């Protein structure tokens, strides 16, 4: 008994106990730190997935334009690209064949991490050589063939559509990384553009000269598509707030347009 008491009171025992205490303290701290790190990392990742929204316009299977909340940069910036439409419609030095139909497959891809509802506004118009819009030429001669309207999932908002603008809503929830059905599949310029002329006549020295000019010569047709996306949560109010359009979303997530009163 005396030996045990002598050992406990000896400097060696005190030193051993001190070293042991320090070791235990260090191990317990490391464990806590690791637990805290794992816990915060998981929470952080969850928040990112809940907040990312992004949408991409797809043309003939290729991403053309997109605007995605930047996952890698949390300062509120966006990964954004605005590409041209129809850039591969003609080969180099190839001229447009009036009347011929060209593939133009358009769809929307959800490039965010949350479900969303989308709509597309399609604009068709003519530009003069200076890039000014020519309102006296018919947008109907730019024949973008729409597809999957109605039963295919896309709804045309006839209240918002005009000869120049067509507004389509995708009636179903577009899940993350999902691509919608096509809303257009081809484009052609109506052959009528080669028949529309303006004639002027001038009589001089007894001779009458009639000059015929093609109204559409030198003008440029323009196709524009704008895609809007809004979060799926509380979609009815979100769409009303963001787009000013009354819709109903049923329990299955199917959207329908509500006629204005």
């Amino acid at each position: 008994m005396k030996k045990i008491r002598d050992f406990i009171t000896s400097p060696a025992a005190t030193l051993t106990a001190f070293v042991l205490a320090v070791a235990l303290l260090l191990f317990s701290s490391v464990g806590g730190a690791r637990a805290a790190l794992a816990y915060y990392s998981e929470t952080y990742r969850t928040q990112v997935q809940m907040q990312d929204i992004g949408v991409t316009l797809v043309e003939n299977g290729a991403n053309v334009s997109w605007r995605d909340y930047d996952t890698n940069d949390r300062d509120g910036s966006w990964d954004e690209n605005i590409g041209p439409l129809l850039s591969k419609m003609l080969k180099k030095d190839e001229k447009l064949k009036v009347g011929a139909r060209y593939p133009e497959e358009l769809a929307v891809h959800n490039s965010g991490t949350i479900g969303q509802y989308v709509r597309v506004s399609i604009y068709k118009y003519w530009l003069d050589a200076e890039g000014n819009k020519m309102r006296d030429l018919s947008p109907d001669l730019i024949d973008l063939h729409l597809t999957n309207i109605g039963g295919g999932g896309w709804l045309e908002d006839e209240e918002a559509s005009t000869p120049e603008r067509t507004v389509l809503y995708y009636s179903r929830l577009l899940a993350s990384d999902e691509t919608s059905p096509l809303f257009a599949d081809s484009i052609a310029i109506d052959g009528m553009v080669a028949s529309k002329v303006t004639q002027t006549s001038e009589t001089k020295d007894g001779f009458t000269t009639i000059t015929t000019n093609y109204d559409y010569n030198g003008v440029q047709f323009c196709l524009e598509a704008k895609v809007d996306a809004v979060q799926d949560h509380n979609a009815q109010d979100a769409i009303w707030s963001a787009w000013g359009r009354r819709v109903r979303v049923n329990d299955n997530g199917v959207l329908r347009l509500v006629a204005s009163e």
Partner: protein
Amino acid sequence: MRKKNILLAAAAVSLALSTGIGSAWAYFTTYTQARGGYPIELGDRTTVEEEFSDWTKHVVITSSPDSQPVYVRVRAISGSVYNLVYSGSGKWTPGADGYYYYSDIVTGGMSTDALDVRIENVPDDVDDPASFNVVIVYETTPVRYHEDGTPYADWEADLWTGQWKEGK
């Protein structure tokens, strides 16, 4: 002093609540867009060249460099006294309407092969070829395309000077 404290507290609570309302109204939205197009080139200008030798007219139609592609047809008109015989490359084929149709599309800057129109039954005592009134008539029509891209000629196409209706 006490009233003042109550007002300050109420203002603080209102501010805190309004912050919450603001976040409830903020919805996640995004958008993107793209556009593109091409110019339309219409109109054509063609000229006819005629050479006369050995009682034969050699006819060539040439398209200006900035012209859109066209189809060409040609015929010759004379009095019934003289018989006209056509010949040329295999690209000229007769139509039921008396025209000879050139099978190839004539693009800007290109020319047709020569179409030879020989005048027969010429009297031996005629010395002045200019006294023969053989007129060459040619027409062009812009190349049109079916939806599958196949080109065709529409010789009956009318030019239209009216106004669009219902957007057209």
